[in-house]
């Protein structure tokens, strides 16, 4: 056994381990103490200790720094000066079964570094979503970490991360696994057009035909995102665009009077008894700004950006919903849309899926349908306390509350967890925590995690790019993970689709 240290004291939450000289222990390292099976401990803090009194050490340092004599050395320094690691027992493994540790490992027990075989209980689930490999400090083990897609998605996934900590990379790695699954359909609202990978590595290179891309200016092979104005109903705007009471009443009147032509009639400026012209004009401006639809000088409805339009795009929402029901990943590039319009696109699709799945539940067909996950960035825009209080519930908050019943879940990404209500956070039962330097946000993440992360504050702050902690009700402990770089991941696994451009065309027609 390569000893890394020895337990010399401490308590349940912080076992003290003296580090063996020349065997540096890192923050987050996983150590193993054997005895009645073995206990896995995770290092939470590191401290210097010395047998030499403080005054002597300061004096010796002064001699060295000020050049009073040659180098001052301590006698048997590795015995007198050392590092103490504070570690928490995170798991006890007996007969191959992981258990929550209820007693301390043996006193003065030597500890070693974790090995791949120590984590054999981390089984590959039935619907595996690959997240990365187990990480011990900054060392990466050859033990892959998966969560079960069906369990995790229906119980919602939260990815808290600040900019530059690798969340896009993580989501791409996750989606790559999900694209191989028939039992899961994923809607990705992509405000930065970064997941499909028009010009760089992305899901577009997946060898299956399971990734479908919609964009206002889709490349060859993609789908042009067009949504007919008739597809939009007043409820799609709920909680997305803040209308006044007068505007809401006006919208209800137009919808009652004109049915699915209601937006067009408003844009055309058709007056309706009981609706003030000023209200009508404000609504026209709102639709102009958010949807980009307006009336030109010849009285024709025009679409700025071409997404929301009065002709064409009739089947887009149904097409997307059907693809999701077929277990595909649908990436919708919303980078050219205003913020509200992006949420609205998601709202229309999510509402259609929610409606269908409610129906399937009623008819008993739900168990035959794939679970649906919705990837939403900057989640507080729709799940934020203030937003919900000010604008009421929207389809996303409804899914956060009730989606599990209908096999629909959210994969919410945010920098600001503190803006999301505790009740919603408590429903997000898998959290993939990336580095976060904001103390308040870390406190919220820790407070809502599925495991006790109370002494992981510093660890979360020190997570490097691509490092994460997976805290989930479906894992026995908060698993430290190293997420591979997406490009290297698909390249090393030889997973990319082959270029067929050079194949001869066998033309019939």
């Amino acid at each position: 056994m390569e000893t890394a240290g020895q337990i010399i004291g401490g308590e349940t939450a912080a076992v003290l381990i003296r580090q063996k000289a020349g065997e540096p222990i890192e923050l987050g390292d996983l150590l193993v103490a054997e005895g009645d099976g073995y206990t896995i401990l995770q290092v939470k803090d590191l401290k210097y200790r010395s047998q030499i009194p403080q005054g002597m050490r300061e004096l010796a340092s002064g001699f060295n720094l000020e050049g009073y004599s040659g180098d001052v050395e301590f006698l048997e320094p590795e015995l007198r000066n050392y590092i103490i690691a504070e570690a928490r027992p995170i798991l006890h493994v007996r007969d191959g079964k992981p258990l929550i540790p209820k007693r301390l490992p043996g006193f003065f027990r030597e500890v070693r570094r974790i090995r791949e075989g120590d984590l054999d209980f981390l089984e590959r689930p039935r619907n595996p979503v690959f997240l990365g490999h187990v990480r011990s400090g900054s060392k990466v083990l050859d033990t892959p970490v998966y969560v079960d897609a069906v369990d995790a998605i229906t119980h919602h996934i939260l990815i808290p991360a600040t900019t530059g900590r690798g969340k896009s990379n993580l989501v791409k790695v996750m989606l790559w696994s999900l694209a191989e699954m028939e039992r899961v359909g994923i809607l990705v609202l992509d405000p930065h057009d970064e997941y499909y990978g028009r010009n760089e590595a992305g899901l577009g290179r997946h060898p299956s035909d399971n990734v479908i891309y919609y964009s206002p200016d889709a490349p060859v092979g993609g789908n042009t995102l067009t949504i007919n104005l008739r597809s939009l109903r007043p409820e799609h705007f709920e909680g997305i665009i803040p209308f006044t009471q007068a505007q809401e009443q006006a919208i209800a009147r137009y919808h009652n009077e004109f049915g699915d032509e209601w937006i067009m009639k408003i844009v055309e400026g058709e007056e309706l008894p009981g609706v003030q012209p000023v209200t009508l004009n404000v609504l026209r401006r709102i639709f102009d700004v958010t949807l980009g639809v307006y009336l030109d000088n010849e009285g024709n409805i025009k679409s700025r950006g071409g997404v929301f339009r009065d002709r064409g795009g009739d089947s887009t929402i149904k097409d997307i919903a059907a693809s999701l029901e077929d277990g595909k990943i649908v990436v919708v590039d919303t980078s050219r849309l205003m913020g509200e319009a992006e949420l609205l696109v998601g709202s229309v699709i999510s509402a259609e899926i929610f409606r269908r799945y409610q129906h399937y539940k009623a008819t008993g067909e739900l168990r035959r349908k794939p679970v649906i996950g919705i990837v939403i960035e900057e989640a507080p825009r729709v799940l934020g306390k203030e937003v919900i209080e000010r604008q009421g519930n929207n389809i996303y908050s409804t899914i956060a509350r009730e989606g599990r019943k209908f096999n629909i879940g959210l994969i919410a990404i945010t920098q600001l967890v503190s803006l999301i209500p505790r009740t919603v956070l408590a429903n997000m039962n898998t959290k993939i925590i990336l580095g976060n330097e904001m103390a308040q946000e870390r406190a919220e993440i820790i407070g809502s995690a599925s495991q006790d992360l109370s002494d992981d504050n510093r660890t979360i702050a020190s997570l490097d790019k691509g490092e994460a902690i997976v805290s989930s009700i479906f894992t026995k402990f908060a698993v430290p993970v190293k997420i591979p770089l997406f490009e290297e991941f698909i390249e090393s696994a030889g997973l990319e689709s082959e270029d067929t451009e050079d194949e001869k065309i066998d033309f019939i027609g």
Partner: protein
Amino acid sequence: MYRFAHLSDCHLGAQKQPDLRELEFEAFRMALDDALQNDVDFMIIAGDLFHSNIPNMETVKRATLELRRVREAGVPIYVNYGSHDYSPSSTSMIDILESAGVIDKVVRPIPGKKLGLEFTVDEKTGAKITGLSGRSRTLEVDYFMRLDREALEAEEGFRIFLFHSAITQFKPADLADMESVDLNLFPRGFEYYAGGHVHRKGCYIEEGYGPIVYPGTLFGSYAGDLEENARGEKRGYYLVEFTDKVRETEFREISPAEFDYIECDVTGKNSQDAYHQIGREISGHDVTGKVVMLKIRGELSSGRTSDIDSASIRERLESMGARVVQINRYGLSTREIQKVRVVESDVPRLERRIFREKLAGLDIKNRSLIDGGDSIAVELLRRLENEKAPGENRNEYERRITEDAEDVLGLDLGGDDT
């Protein structure tokens, strides 16, 4: 100023009932007459001139006479294959008519890494026509993906792109299941896009493209089409005027018969009450000389669906003077018998739904079969329905059917060696 007529989806030979078959042909003849009377310089038929690649001889004979009449009037007819009259071995009736000089097939590939297409130049007008054929299950999307768009876009002149595919952006919401091709796969900047395959008319204006036009079916091939006729959907073709660009597109309605649509929802009734309700409903209609589309739908509270006697309902409508009676009862079910759990408005959709339901219950490893098995099954069923053509010997027939089946299933069984 020049003119051309743009027709599509004539589906000659689709109707089995003699009266409907007559009307189907009448619509075709009326459209050609109307186009000739409007002095068109050429005609375009954007696929599915025939309902199958080897239609029955009577249909072929009559169609040939009509097409030759147009040709003899100095009006060329430019066509492509549709998804119905397409043949993987160039043995479609379209090919035979082309060999006889009656029509011009304008889909002409240029070999290369990318799929180049030659233009067919209309002698009189100078219009340059090219395009792609339709294939079953929208397999033509592969061709669209490999299309040499740059070369096509670089061509100068009045260019027409002929195609037989639904365009994703323009699919009607109720046809969301229909496979389609995104508009971004089309070459941009053509002066006119002559579409077929979608059975409803539509003219779309899109930035960077000339008018994108679907005339829709001329009469209708399925009961669902005829039901739409009865519900007021206009059928016909587009008459297009152009110089160096399109000046006007006019939809010319072709209506060979009057239709009447009667729908009876018998939900909650027992079979006897339902039968009486249908009787009361039809008695309120003047059906003299009309094609009557009667749709019976809903779930009976008791009794069998067969208790509602279609024959006597038909007799009654005929005695009231109806020219043709079509009864659609695919949406009819009963609480007593729950075997049929899918409700659709016409046979192809019903077949597709049934196949899909069955597929969902099977343990299939092949992903493509899970995704597209229903389409394959429906298409295979349709191909296997093709009868032996007059003059075709048994071996030829078997070979044709085998080739069709191979094409649908994406197999190569080795031709004559097997």
